[in-house]
């Protein structure tokens, strides 16, 4: 194995993602990386929103770096942080617009965990704005933002879909290309439809942005959300999502509470799985007090069926959406779900037909450029 080996880059990327966590003791190289693997590490760390931890690993003396590498890492991080400030400015605009319309929000993911769960918010980069709106408020919230100049990526699939079943709606801010995801739920698919949405609207914690206090999910729900994102969000769990899980589960008592909540949604297997992945990939230990509560990842037949709907477990986007029916209890609700999913509006179908391919090309090009 050489320093040019992609496995070495992946190993270092995991070390970067684990930097500063209690119990993590990754094997760092004894001297600065040669140029090619360094450039690869920097590019992937930046794309994976780990630029802050990369800089921290260098400045703390864990990852040896040349002066030029240090400057390059810092420059990448500054660019990521400038983008984060743009995102937070849009967050403030969106929240103010929704509040004027009487719509409550909870700040989700990047901005919330950066401020509430990391020792320094600059350690956690993020790429879009994620906000939860109350059950039933998603169509109105999307409409209010559209009237304020935000552009939807697609017309509504069906009004009832957005009212009762959608995970989220994506819009773009009028100036620039900032993506705003308005969430109704935490994830799509069966683990999403099984969530009792009213559980998400307990007492919030607050993040203060530019002097404005914004409500976020409570810490135990942030851990649940981070675990669901890590286990169910992508083909491969993102290291930044696993870092969020590790960052949160280190807090005493939080993991037990997250497991309790997820059990009520038939999703404790997701929490156990995400913790297992964080432990394995970041080289850390689960909190000792919680080790007895975690199940080994041997899903029941029902859990295996649900997990199999997601791309991370061999599923596909279509299978995730279709599998959402499994998380619903009543036959009537299941029938409504399937009707709303499989008979989209004419406008939606037309937009998918004309935009789908272009979106795919753009996505593929983006990924090619990123890696």
């Amino acid at each position, binding site marked *: 194995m050489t320093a040019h080996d992609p496995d070495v880059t992946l190993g270092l990327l995991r070390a970067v993602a684990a930097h500063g966590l209690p119990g993590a003791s990754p094997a760092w190289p004894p001297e600065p990386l040669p140029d090619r693997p360094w450039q690869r590490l920097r590019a992937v760390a930046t794309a994976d929103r780990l630029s802050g931890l990369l800089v921290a690993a260098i400045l703390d003396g864990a990852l040896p770096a040349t002066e030029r590498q240090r400057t390059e890492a*810092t420059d990448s991080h500054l660019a990521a942080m400038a983008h984060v400030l743009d995102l937070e400015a849009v967050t403030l605009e969106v929240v103010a617009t929704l509040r004027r319309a009487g719509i409550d929000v909870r700040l989700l993911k990047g901005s919330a965990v950066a401020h509430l769960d990391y020792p320094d918010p600059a350690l956690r980069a993020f790429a879009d704005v994620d906000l939860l709106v109350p059950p039933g408020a998603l169509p109105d919230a999307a409409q209010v933002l559209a009237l304020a100049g935000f552009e939807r990526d697609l017309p509504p699939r069906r009004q009832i879909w957005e009212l009762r079943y959608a995970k989220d709606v994506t819009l773009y801010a009028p100036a620039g290309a900032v993506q705003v995801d308005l969430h109704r739920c935490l994830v799509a698919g069966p683990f999403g439809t099984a969530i009792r949405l009213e559980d998400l609207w307990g007492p919030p914690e607050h993040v203060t942005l530019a002097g404005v206090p914004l409500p976020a999910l409570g810490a135990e729900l942030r851990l649940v959300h981070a675990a669901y994102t890590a286990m169910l969000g992508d083909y491969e769990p993102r290291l930044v999502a696993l870092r969020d899980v590790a960052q949160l589960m280190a807090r005493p008592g939080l993991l037990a509470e997250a497991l309790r909540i997820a059990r009520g949604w038939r999703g404790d297997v997701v929490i156990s799985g995400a913790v297992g992945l964080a432990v394995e990939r970041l080289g850390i230990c689960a909190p000792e007090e919680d080790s007895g509560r975690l199940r080994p990842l041997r899903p029941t037949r029902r859990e295996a069926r649900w997990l199999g709907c997601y791309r991370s477990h061999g599923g596909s986007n279509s299978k995730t959406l279709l599998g959402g029916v499994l998380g619903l209890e009543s036959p009537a609700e299941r029938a409504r779900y399937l009707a709303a999913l499989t008979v989209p509006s004419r406008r939606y179908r037309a937009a998918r037909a004309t935009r789908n391919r272009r979106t795919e090309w753009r996505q593929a090009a983006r990924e090619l450029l990123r890696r």
Partner: protein
Amino acid sequence: VSTYRRDEAVLWRASATAVLIRRPQDPTVLVLDGLSGLVWSALEQPRSRDQIIEVIAAELGQAPEEAAALVTEALRMLETQHRLVAPQKA
């Protein structure tokens, strides 16, 4: 004696080499590096001019009287040019 405070109505992040600041309504991102970044960091809590000088001098390993002129100039720039800090009567 006046104490200086940060303007709270801004978004900001501190990196290893600089502090990035922007106002919600203005897309311009201001980069505070060098002494102005140190002054911003020293104002994690309200401080008088002398206290700011003391904190930064300790960080730079200098005597306060050595650092005083440059820190005062950085503070003045943040106050008058960028309006990012403001004095208040203690």
